Protein backbone atom coordinates (compact mmCIF):
# COMPACT_ATOMS: atom_id res chain seq x y z
CA UNK A 1 0.00 0.00 0.00
CA UNK A 2 1.05 3.57 -0.68
CA UNK A 3 0.39 6.25 1.92
CA UNK A 4 -0.63 9.57 0.42
CA UNK A 5 -1.16 12.85 2.23
CA UNK A 6 -2.20 15.77 0.12
CA UNK A 7 -4.17 18.98 0.20
CA UNK A 8 -7.50 18.66 -1.64
CA UNK A 9 -9.55 21.83 -2.09
CA UNK A 10 -7.63 23.41 0.78
CA UNK A 11 -8.12 20.52 3.20
CA UNK A 12 -5.39 18.05 4.19
CA UNK A 13 -6.48 14.48 3.51
CA UNK A 14 -4.74 11.10 3.73
CA UNK A 15 -5.32 7.71 2.21
CA UNK A 16 -3.61 4.37 1.97
CA UNK A 17 -4.09 2.89 -1.49
CA UNK A 18 -2.61 0.09 -3.64
CA UNK A 19 0.39 1.54 -5.55
CA UNK A 20 -1.29 1.22 -8.97
CA UNK A 21 -4.23 3.44 -7.89
CA UNK A 22 -4.68 6.49 -10.09
CA UNK A 23 -5.33 9.93 -8.63
CA UNK A 24 -8.79 9.82 -10.25
CA UNK A 25 -9.66 6.53 -8.57
CA UNK A 26 -8.44 7.79 -5.20
CA UNK A 27 -10.45 11.03 -5.54
CA UNK A 28 -13.62 9.18 -6.46
CA UNK A 29 -13.38 6.12 -4.24
CA UNK A 30 -11.37 7.18 -1.18
CA UNK A 31 -12.51 10.78 -0.89
CA UNK A 32 -15.93 10.49 -2.55
CA UNK A 33 -15.11 13.42 -4.86
CA UNK A 34 -17.01 12.22 -7.93
CA UNK A 35 -16.96 15.51 -9.86
CA UNK A 36 -13.93 14.40 -11.88
CA UNK A 37 -15.37 11.82 -14.28
CA UNK A 38 -14.01 8.50 -15.46
CA UNK A 39 -14.36 8.73 -19.24
CA UNK A 40 -11.70 6.95 -21.30
CA UNK A 41 -9.20 6.28 -18.47
CA UNK A 42 -6.30 6.74 -20.95
CA UNK A 43 -5.95 10.51 -21.13
CA UNK A 44 -7.92 11.16 -24.32
CA UNK A 45 -11.16 12.74 -23.17
CA UNK A 46 -10.24 15.12 -20.33
CA UNK A 47 -13.37 14.39 -18.27
CA UNK A 48 -11.13 13.71 -15.25
CA UNK A 49 -9.27 17.05 -15.39
CA UNK A 50 -8.17 18.49 -12.03
CA UNK A 51 -5.66 21.20 -11.14
CA UNK A 52 -2.42 20.22 -9.40
CA UNK A 53 -0.22 23.06 -8.14
CA UNK A 54 -1.83 25.40 -10.68
CA UNK A 55 -1.58 23.09 -13.71
CA UNK A 56 -4.50 21.20 -15.28
CA UNK A 57 -3.85 17.46 -15.54
CA UNK A 58 -5.72 14.31 -16.49
CA UNK A 59 -6.14 12.65 -13.10
CA UNK A 60 -6.53 9.24 -14.78
CA UNK A 61 -2.90 9.46 -15.94
CA UNK A 62 -1.39 10.25 -12.55
CA UNK A 63 -0.75 7.77 -9.79
CA UNK A 64 -2.09 8.64 -6.38
CA UNK A 65 1.46 8.33 -5.02
CA UNK A 66 2.66 11.09 -7.33
CA UNK A 67 0.50 13.71 -5.62
CA UNK A 68 1.83 13.05 -2.11
CA UNK A 69 2.49 16.43 -0.50
CA UNK A 70 0.95 18.38 -3.36
CA UNK A 71 -2.10 20.56 -3.72
CA UNK A 72 -5.09 19.33 -5.76
CA UNK A 73 -8.09 21.41 -6.77
CA UNK A 74 -11.19 19.59 -8.04
CA UNK A 75 -14.51 20.92 -9.31
CA UNK A 76 -15.90 20.50 -5.79
CA UNK A 77 -13.46 23.16 -4.60
CA UNK A 78 -14.77 25.95 -6.83
CA UNK A 79 -18.21 26.84 -5.50
CA UNK A 80 -19.26 27.81 -1.99
CA UNK A 81 -22.76 26.88 -0.80
CA UNK A 82 -23.87 30.45 -1.61
CA UNK A 83 -21.91 31.26 -4.76
CA UNK A 84 -20.98 29.48 -7.91
CA UNK A 85 -17.48 30.20 -9.20
CA UNK A 86 -17.68 32.85 -11.99
CA UNK A 87 -16.78 30.18 -14.58
CA UNK A 88 -19.59 27.92 -13.36
CA UNK A 89 -21.99 30.87 -13.40
CA UNK A 90 -21.12 31.90 -16.96
CA UNK A 91 -21.35 28.26 -18.11
CA UNK A 92 -24.87 28.25 -16.67
CA UNK A 93 -25.78 31.64 -18.15
CA UNK A 94 -24.47 30.77 -21.63
CA UNK A 95 -26.12 27.30 -21.66
CA UNK A 96 -22.64 25.93 -22.33
CA UNK A 97 -23.29 22.35 -21.28
CA UNK A 98 -25.80 19.81 -22.56
CA UNK A 99 -25.38 16.31 -21.12
CA UNK A 100 -22.74 17.80 -18.81
CA UNK A 101 -20.44 14.78 -18.52
CA UNK A 102 -17.44 16.74 -19.84
CA UNK A 103 -18.39 19.82 -17.76
CA UNK A 104 -16.25 19.43 -14.63
CA UNK A 105 -13.16 18.75 -16.77
CA UNK A 106 -13.82 21.65 -19.14
CA UNK A 107 -14.40 24.05 -16.25
CA UNK A 108 -11.17 22.97 -14.53
CA UNK A 109 -9.21 23.47 -17.79
CA UNK A 110 -10.79 26.93 -18.10
CA UNK A 111 -9.90 27.71 -14.49
CA UNK A 112 -6.25 26.75 -15.02
CA UNK A 113 -6.19 28.94 -18.15
CA UNK A 114 -7.74 32.01 -16.50
CA UNK A 115 -5.54 31.71 -13.40
CA UNK A 116 -2.52 31.77 -15.68
CA UNK A 117 -3.81 34.18 -18.34
CA UNK A 118 -6.66 36.41 -17.15
CA UNK A 119 -7.40 37.82 -20.60
CA UNK A 120 -7.01 35.00 -23.14
CA UNK A 121 -7.77 35.29 -26.85
CA UNK A 122 -10.30 32.95 -28.48
CA UNK A 123 -7.40 30.94 -29.94
CA UNK A 124 -5.86 30.59 -26.48
CA UNK A 125 -9.22 29.45 -25.06
CA UNK A 126 -9.65 26.88 -27.85
CA UNK A 127 -6.12 25.68 -27.19
CA UNK A 128 -6.75 25.35 -23.43
CA UNK A 129 -9.95 23.33 -23.97
CA UNK A 130 -8.50 21.11 -26.73
CA UNK A 131 -7.87 18.26 -24.29
CA UNK A 132 -11.51 18.11 -23.23
CA UNK A 133 -13.75 16.24 -25.66
CA UNK A 134 -17.41 17.18 -25.92
CA UNK A 135 -19.87 15.33 -28.13
CA UNK A 136 -22.91 17.58 -27.50
CA UNK A 137 -22.17 21.26 -27.76
CA UNK A 138 -19.66 21.97 -30.51
CA UNK A 139 -17.73 23.94 -27.83
CA UNK A 140 -19.14 27.25 -29.12
CA UNK A 141 -21.03 28.25 -25.99
CA UNK A 142 -18.18 27.01 -23.77
CA UNK A 143 -15.76 29.38 -25.50
CA UNK A 144 -18.26 32.22 -25.02
CA UNK A 145 -18.61 31.34 -21.33
CA UNK A 146 -14.83 31.39 -20.77
CA UNK A 147 -14.66 34.82 -22.44
CA UNK A 148 -17.48 36.06 -20.19
CA UNK A 149 -15.86 34.53 -17.09
CA UNK A 150 -12.57 36.23 -17.92
CA UNK A 151 -14.37 39.60 -17.97
CA UNK A 152 -16.16 38.91 -14.66
CA UNK A 153 -13.00 37.66 -12.95
CA UNK A 154 -10.96 40.64 -14.13
CA UNK A 155 -13.53 43.12 -12.87
CA UNK A 156 -13.70 41.19 -9.57
CA UNK A 157 -9.92 41.51 -9.28
CA UNK A 158 -10.10 45.26 -9.95
CA UNK A 159 -12.80 45.62 -7.28
CA UNK A 160 -10.77 43.59 -4.77
CA UNK A 161 -7.63 45.62 -5.41
CA UNK A 162 -9.58 48.88 -5.09
CA UNK A 163 -10.89 47.68 -1.72
CA UNK A 164 -7.49 46.67 -0.32
CA UNK A 165 -5.90 49.90 -1.54
CA UNK A 166 -8.62 51.80 0.34
Amino acid at each position, binding site marked *: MTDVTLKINGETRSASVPPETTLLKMLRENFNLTGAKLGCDIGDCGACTVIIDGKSVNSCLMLAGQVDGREVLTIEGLATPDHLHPIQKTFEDCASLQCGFCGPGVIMSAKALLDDNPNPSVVEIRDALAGNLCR*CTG*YTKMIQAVQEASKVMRSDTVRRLAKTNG
Partner: protein
Amino acid sequence: MKKRGRGIACMWYPIGFTVAANPSAAVVKVNEDGTATLLTGTVETGQGSLTVLGQIVAEELGIATDDVHVVSADTDTTPMDTGAIASRTTYVTGNASRLAAEKAKEILFQVAAPMLGVKPEQLEARDRKIQVKNYPQRSIGIGEVANQAQFVMGQPALGSASFNPPTVALDPATGQGKPFATYVYATQIADVDVDDETGEVEVLRIVAAHDCGTAINPMLVEGQIEGGISMGVGFALQEEMLFDKNGKQLNPNLTNYIMPTSLDMPEIEVDIVKNFDPTGPFGAKGVGEPTAVPTAAAIMNAIYDAVGARVYSLPATPERVLAAIKAARAKKLPKPKRKETQKRIAAH
Protein backbone atom coordinates in the same frame (compact mmCIF):
# COMPACT_ATOMS: atom_id res chain seq x y z
CA MET B 1 -0.98 26.74 -51.55
CA LYS B 2 -4.06 27.38 -49.48
CA LYS B 3 -7.19 27.89 -51.56
CA ARG B 4 -10.41 29.27 -50.14
CA GLY B 5 -13.83 27.95 -51.06
CA ARG B 6 -17.45 28.35 -50.09
CA GLY B 7 -20.10 25.63 -50.23
CA ILE B 8 -23.80 25.53 -49.57
CA ALA B 9 -26.14 22.64 -48.74
CA CYS B 10 -29.85 22.47 -48.03
CA MET B 11 -31.95 19.79 -46.38
CA TRP B 12 -35.41 18.83 -45.26
CA TYR B 13 -36.03 16.43 -42.42
CA PRO B 14 -39.16 14.78 -41.03
CA ILE B 15 -40.28 14.96 -37.41
CA GLY B 16 -41.40 11.67 -35.81
CA PHE B 17 -41.62 8.13 -37.17
CA THR B 18 -42.40 7.18 -40.79
CA VAL B 19 -46.13 6.32 -40.57
CA ALA B 20 -45.56 3.95 -37.59
CA ALA B 21 -47.31 4.88 -34.35
CA ASN B 22 -45.11 6.98 -32.06
CA PRO B 23 -47.36 8.43 -29.40
CA SER B 24 -46.51 10.53 -26.39
CA ALA B 25 -48.76 11.16 -23.44
CA ALA B 26 -48.77 13.61 -20.57
CA VAL B 27 -50.60 14.36 -17.35
CA VAL B 28 -50.85 17.92 -16.02
CA LYS B 29 -52.10 18.78 -12.55
CA VAL B 30 -52.65 22.35 -11.36
CA ASN B 31 -51.85 22.63 -7.69
CA GLU B 32 -53.57 24.76 -5.06
CA ASP B 33 -50.45 26.92 -4.65
CA GLY B 34 -50.64 27.97 -8.30
CA THR B 35 -47.88 25.66 -9.50
CA ALA B 36 -48.39 22.79 -11.91
CA THR B 37 -46.98 19.29 -12.21
CA LEU B 38 -46.26 17.65 -15.56
CA LEU B 39 -45.81 13.89 -15.85
CA THR B 40 -44.03 12.86 -19.04
CA GLY B 41 -42.23 9.72 -20.06
CA THR B 42 -39.63 11.52 -22.16
CA VAL B 43 -35.95 11.52 -21.26
CA GLU B 44 -33.71 14.52 -20.76
CA THR B 45 -30.26 13.92 -22.25
CA GLY B 46 -29.02 17.49 -22.10
CA GLN B 47 -30.92 18.78 -25.11
CA GLY B 48 -33.24 20.66 -22.76
CA SER B 49 -36.47 18.88 -23.60
CA LEU B 50 -37.81 19.04 -20.04
CA THR B 51 -37.22 22.80 -20.00
CA VAL B 52 -39.09 23.14 -23.28
CA LEU B 53 -42.00 20.96 -22.06
CA GLY B 54 -42.15 23.01 -18.87
CA GLN B 55 -42.25 26.18 -20.97
CA ILE B 56 -45.09 24.78 -23.10
CA VAL B 57 -47.19 23.88 -20.04
CA ALA B 58 -46.42 27.24 -18.43
CA GLU B 59 -47.47 29.11 -21.56
CA GLU B 60 -50.75 27.19 -21.77
CA LEU B 61 -51.57 27.82 -18.09
CA GLY B 62 -50.34 31.42 -17.97
CA ILE B 63 -47.80 30.67 -15.25
CA ALA B 64 -43.97 30.86 -15.09
CA THR B 65 -41.70 28.06 -16.28
CA ASP B 66 -40.32 27.82 -12.74
CA ASP B 67 -43.86 27.10 -11.52
CA VAL B 68 -43.95 23.84 -13.49
CA HIS B 69 -42.55 20.78 -11.76
CA VAL B 70 -41.61 18.25 -14.44
CA VAL B 71 -41.55 14.56 -13.44
CA SER B 72 -40.01 12.52 -16.22
CA ALA B 73 -39.00 9.06 -17.34
CA ASP B 74 -40.20 7.13 -14.31
CA THR B 75 -42.05 4.00 -15.37
CA ASP B 76 -43.73 3.86 -11.95
CA THR B 77 -45.48 7.18 -12.41
CA THR B 78 -45.22 8.66 -15.90
CA PRO B 79 -46.95 7.69 -19.14
CA MET B 80 -44.90 5.69 -21.62
CA ASP B 81 -43.08 7.82 -24.23
CA THR B 82 -41.83 6.61 -27.60
CA GLY B 83 -38.50 8.26 -26.81
CA ALA B 84 -36.11 11.15 -27.30
CA ILE B 85 -35.59 10.04 -30.90
CA ALA B 86 -36.67 11.05 -34.43
CA SER B 87 -36.36 14.74 -33.42
CA ARG B 88 -39.87 14.30 -32.03
CA THR B 89 -39.91 15.44 -28.39
CA THR B 90 -40.81 19.12 -28.81
CA TYR B 91 -43.43 18.33 -31.46
CA VAL B 92 -45.01 15.08 -30.25
CA THR B 93 -44.46 15.17 -26.48
CA GLY B 94 -44.89 18.95 -26.60
CA ASN B 95 -48.29 18.58 -28.24
CA ALA B 96 -49.35 15.96 -25.66
CA SER B 97 -48.18 18.23 -22.81
CA ARG B 98 -49.97 21.26 -24.24
CA LEU B 99 -53.20 19.29 -24.73
CA ALA B 100 -53.04 17.94 -21.16
CA ALA B 101 -52.48 21.47 -19.82
CA GLU B 102 -55.36 22.74 -21.95
CA LYS B 103 -57.71 20.16 -20.39
CA ALA B 104 -56.68 21.18 -16.88
CA LYS B 105 -57.17 24.81 -17.90
CA GLU B 106 -60.70 24.08 -19.15
CA ILE B 107 -61.62 22.83 -15.67
CA LEU B 108 -60.14 26.00 -14.16
CA PHE B 109 -62.24 28.08 -16.58
CA GLN B 110 -65.44 26.19 -15.70
CA VAL B 111 -64.76 26.74 -12.01
CA ALA B 112 -63.73 30.39 -12.36
CA ALA B 113 -66.59 31.41 -14.68
CA PRO B 114 -69.33 31.58 -12.00
CA MET B 115 -66.86 33.17 -9.56
CA LEU B 116 -66.30 36.00 -12.07
CA GLY B 117 -69.86 36.02 -13.42
CA VAL B 118 -68.88 35.28 -17.03
CA LYS B 119 -68.91 32.33 -19.44
CA PRO B 120 -65.85 30.00 -19.51
CA GLU B 121 -65.04 31.02 -23.10
CA GLN B 122 -64.65 34.64 -21.97
CA LEU B 123 -61.70 33.67 -19.77
CA GLU B 124 -57.96 33.46 -20.31
CA ALA B 125 -55.03 32.24 -18.21
CA ARG B 126 -52.33 34.88 -17.80
CA ASP B 127 -49.86 36.19 -15.24
CA ARG B 128 -50.72 33.37 -12.79
CA LYS B 129 -54.38 34.39 -12.90
CA ILE B 130 -57.61 33.33 -14.54
CA GLN B 131 -58.96 36.57 -15.90
CA VAL B 132 -61.73 37.94 -18.10
CA LYS B 133 -60.38 38.63 -21.60
CA ASN B 134 -59.64 42.34 -22.04
CA TYR B 135 -60.57 42.96 -18.37
CA PRO B 136 -57.43 41.89 -16.49
CA GLN B 137 -58.65 43.59 -13.30
CA ARG B 138 -61.44 40.98 -13.14
CA SER B 139 -59.30 38.02 -12.17
CA ILE B 140 -58.65 35.30 -9.60
CA GLY B 141 -55.27 33.76 -8.80
CA ILE B 142 -54.80 30.40 -10.49
CA GLY B 143 -54.03 28.74 -7.14
CA GLU B 144 -57.29 30.01 -5.67
CA VAL B 145 -59.20 28.64 -8.65
CA ALA B 146 -57.43 25.28 -8.31
CA ASN B 147 -58.33 25.29 -4.62
CA GLN B 148 -61.99 26.04 -5.41
CA ALA B 149 -61.95 23.28 -8.05
CA GLN B 150 -60.59 20.74 -5.59
CA PHE B 151 -62.34 21.57 -2.33
CA VAL B 152 -65.59 23.31 -3.31
CA MET B 153 -66.52 22.02 -6.74
CA GLY B 154 -65.03 18.58 -6.25
CA GLN B 155 -63.52 18.71 -9.73
CA PRO B 156 -59.68 18.70 -9.45
CA ALA B 157 -57.83 20.63 -12.16
CA LEU B 158 -56.18 17.75 -13.97
CA GLY B 159 -55.73 16.92 -17.61
CA SER B 160 -54.28 14.00 -19.46
CA ALA B 161 -53.75 13.72 -23.20
CA SER B 162 -51.84 11.84 -25.83
CA PHE B 163 -50.62 12.78 -29.27
CA ASN B 164 -49.67 10.57 -32.20
CA PRO B 165 -48.60 12.43 -35.35
CA PRO B 166 -51.30 12.03 -38.01
CA THR B 167 -49.93 10.20 -41.06
CA VAL B 168 -51.26 8.27 -44.06
CA ALA B 169 -49.64 4.93 -44.88
CA LEU B 170 -47.69 4.81 -48.15
CA ASP B 171 -49.46 3.05 -51.00
CA PRO B 172 -47.21 0.12 -51.98
CA ALA B 173 -48.12 0.54 -55.65
CA THR B 174 -47.77 4.29 -56.06
CA GLY B 175 -45.59 5.22 -53.10
CA GLN B 176 -48.04 7.98 -52.31
CA GLY B 177 -49.13 8.87 -48.79
CA LYS B 178 -48.30 11.23 -45.96
CA PRO B 179 -45.41 9.60 -44.12
CA PHE B 180 -44.87 12.41 -41.60
CA ALA B 181 -46.96 15.06 -39.90
CA THR B 182 -44.42 17.83 -40.39
CA TYR B 183 -40.96 18.65 -41.75
CA VAL B 184 -38.16 21.09 -40.96
CA TYR B 185 -35.79 22.80 -43.41
CA ALA B 186 -32.26 24.16 -43.19
CA THR B 187 -29.38 25.60 -45.17
CA GLN B 188 -25.77 25.65 -44.08
CA ILE B 189 -22.90 27.51 -45.73
CA ALA B 190 -19.29 26.52 -45.13
CA ASP B 191 -16.11 28.51 -45.76
CA VAL B 192 -12.99 26.35 -45.97
CA ASP B 193 -9.28 26.59 -46.69
CA VAL B 194 -7.85 23.66 -48.67
CA ASP B 195 -4.11 23.18 -48.93
CA ASP B 196 -3.70 21.84 -52.47
CA GLU B 197 -0.24 20.42 -51.70
CA THR B 198 -1.21 18.43 -48.59
CA GLY B 199 -4.96 17.97 -49.03
CA GLU B 200 -5.57 19.39 -45.58
CA VAL B 201 -8.95 21.07 -45.07
CA GLU B 202 -9.70 23.70 -42.44
CA VAL B 203 -13.30 24.74 -41.88
CA LEU B 204 -13.21 28.44 -41.08
CA ARG B 205 -16.85 29.36 -40.65
CA ILE B 206 -20.29 27.80 -40.89
CA VAL B 207 -23.47 29.79 -41.15
CA ALA B 208 -26.54 27.70 -40.35
CA ALA B 209 -30.10 28.82 -41.04
CA HIS B 210 -32.66 26.44 -39.55
CA ASP B 211 -36.44 26.36 -39.57
CA CYS B 212 -37.76 24.63 -36.48
CA GLY B 213 -41.15 26.31 -36.34
CA THR B 214 -41.40 28.49 -33.26
CA ALA B 215 -38.12 28.33 -31.34
CA ILE B 216 -39.58 27.80 -27.88
CA ASN B 217 -36.14 28.19 -26.30
CA PRO B 218 -33.80 29.88 -28.81
CA MET B 219 -30.68 29.32 -26.69
CA LEU B 220 -31.31 25.57 -26.62
CA VAL B 221 -31.98 25.60 -30.38
CA GLU B 222 -28.61 27.30 -30.91
CA GLY B 223 -26.96 24.69 -28.69
CA GLN B 224 -28.51 21.88 -30.73
CA ILE B 225 -27.38 23.47 -34.01
CA GLU B 226 -23.82 24.12 -32.80
CA GLY B 227 -23.56 20.55 -31.50
CA GLY B 228 -24.97 19.14 -34.74
CA ILE B 229 -22.43 21.11 -36.73
CA SER B 230 -19.58 19.64 -34.65
CA MET B 231 -20.89 16.17 -35.47
CA GLY B 232 -21.16 17.20 -39.14
CA VAL B 233 -17.58 18.49 -39.16
CA GLY B 234 -16.38 15.20 -37.67
CA PHE B 235 -18.43 13.23 -40.22
CA ALA B 236 -17.02 15.35 -43.07
CA LEU B 237 -13.34 15.40 -42.20
CA GLN B 238 -12.31 13.18 -39.31
CA GLU B 239 -14.49 10.39 -38.01
CA GLU B 240 -14.32 6.90 -39.43
CA MET B 241 -14.69 3.48 -37.89
CA LEU B 242 -12.01 1.25 -39.36
CA PHE B 243 -12.41 -2.54 -39.40
CA ASP B 244 -10.05 -5.37 -40.24
CA LYS B 245 -11.22 -8.18 -42.54
CA ASN B 246 -12.60 -10.14 -39.59
CA GLY B 247 -14.84 -7.25 -38.65
CA LYS B 248 -12.80 -6.21 -35.62
CA GLN B 249 -12.68 -2.46 -35.12
CA LEU B 250 -9.15 -1.12 -35.54
CA ASN B 251 -9.76 2.21 -33.81
CA PRO B 252 -11.99 1.45 -30.84
CA ASN B 253 -10.91 4.36 -28.65
CA LEU B 254 -10.57 8.12 -28.76
CA THR B 255 -6.81 7.95 -29.39
CA ASN B 256 -7.39 6.84 -32.97
CA TYR B 257 -11.08 7.50 -33.56
CA ILE B 258 -10.60 11.21 -34.12
CA MET B 259 -13.52 13.44 -33.17
CA PRO B 260 -13.50 17.24 -33.30
CA THR B 261 -11.88 19.16 -30.45
CA SER B 262 -12.31 22.86 -29.70
CA LEU B 263 -9.44 23.52 -32.12
CA ASP B 264 -11.24 21.81 -35.03
CA MET B 265 -14.43 23.79 -34.69
CA PRO B 266 -15.14 26.64 -37.06
CA GLU B 267 -16.71 29.92 -36.11
CA ILE B 268 -20.47 29.28 -36.15
CA GLU B 269 -23.23 31.71 -36.89
CA VAL B 270 -26.78 30.48 -36.21
CA ASP B 271 -29.83 31.96 -37.84
CA ILE B 272 -33.17 30.69 -36.53
CA VAL B 273 -35.68 31.17 -39.33
CA LYS B 274 -38.99 32.61 -38.12
CA ASN B 275 -41.77 30.14 -38.85
CA PHE B 276 -44.98 28.85 -37.30
CA ASP B 277 -46.43 25.36 -37.73
CA PRO B 278 -50.11 25.38 -36.76
CA THR B 279 -49.94 21.65 -35.92
CA GLY B 280 -47.13 22.05 -33.37
CA PRO B 281 -47.26 23.26 -29.76
CA PHE B 282 -47.28 27.08 -30.09
CA GLY B 283 -46.03 26.60 -33.64
CA ALA B 284 -42.96 24.51 -32.76
CA LYS B 285 -41.57 21.57 -34.74
CA GLY B 286 -38.12 20.17 -33.90
CA VAL B 287 -34.37 20.69 -34.34
CA GLY B 288 -32.29 17.75 -33.06
CA GLU B 289 -31.01 15.50 -35.83
CA PRO B 290 -31.47 17.89 -38.78
CA THR B 291 -28.64 20.08 -37.47
CA ALA B 292 -26.02 17.52 -38.53
CA VAL B 293 -27.56 16.75 -41.93
CA PRO B 294 -26.28 19.46 -44.31
CA THR B 295 -22.86 20.16 -42.73
CA ALA B 296 -20.74 17.57 -44.54
CA ALA B 297 -22.39 18.33 -47.89
CA ALA B 298 -21.70 22.06 -47.47
CA ILE B 299 -18.05 21.33 -46.61
CA MET B 300 -17.63 19.00 -49.62
CA ASN B 301 -19.12 21.68 -51.91
CA ALA B 302 -16.72 24.22 -50.38
CA ILE B 303 -13.78 21.88 -51.10
CA TYR B 304 -14.95 21.63 -54.72
CA ASP B 305 -15.25 25.41 -54.90
CA ALA B 306 -11.70 25.79 -53.54
CA VAL B 307 -9.79 23.21 -55.58
CA GLY B 308 -12.22 21.84 -58.20
CA ALA B 309 -12.09 18.33 -56.76
CA ARG B 310 -14.99 16.14 -55.73
CA VAL B 311 -14.60 13.83 -52.73
CA TYR B 312 -17.11 10.99 -52.82
CA SER B 313 -16.05 9.04 -49.74
CA LEU B 314 -16.16 10.44 -46.22
CA PRO B 315 -14.32 11.45 -44.19
CA ALA B 316 -12.42 13.75 -46.54
CA THR B 317 -9.02 13.05 -45.01
CA PRO B 318 -5.98 14.87 -46.44
CA GLU B 319 -5.07 11.67 -48.36
CA ARG B 320 -8.49 11.48 -50.02
CA VAL B 321 -8.63 15.20 -50.78
CA LEU B 322 -5.13 15.13 -52.29
CA ALA B 323 -6.04 12.09 -54.40
CA ALA B 324 -9.17 13.90 -55.62
CA ILE B 325 -7.12 17.01 -56.45
CA LYS B 326 -4.65 14.89 -58.47
CA ALA B 327 -7.50 13.10 -60.25
CA ALA B 328 -9.12 16.43 -61.13
CA ARG B 329 -5.81 17.76 -62.46
CA ALA B 330 -5.24 14.62 -64.55
CA LYS B 331 -8.65 15.06 -66.14
CA LYS B 332 -7.83 18.64 -67.07
CA LEU B 333 -4.55 17.77 -68.90
CA PRO B 334 -5.10 18.05 -72.66
CA LYS B 335 -5.25 14.61 -74.30
CA PRO B 336 -2.83 14.13 -77.18
CA LYS B 337 -4.71 14.43 -80.48
CA ARG B 338 -5.02 11.31 -82.60
CA LYS B 339 -3.58 12.79 -85.77
CA GLU B 340 -0.52 14.10 -83.92
CA THR B 341 0.06 10.67 -82.38
CA GLN B 342 -0.22 9.03 -85.81
CA LYS B 343 2.21 11.56 -87.26
CA ARG B 344 4.65 10.84 -84.45
CA ILE B 345 4.32 7.11 -85.05
CA ALA B 346 4.85 7.68 -88.78
CA ALA B 347 7.94 9.81 -88.10
CA HIS B 348 9.49 6.92 -86.23
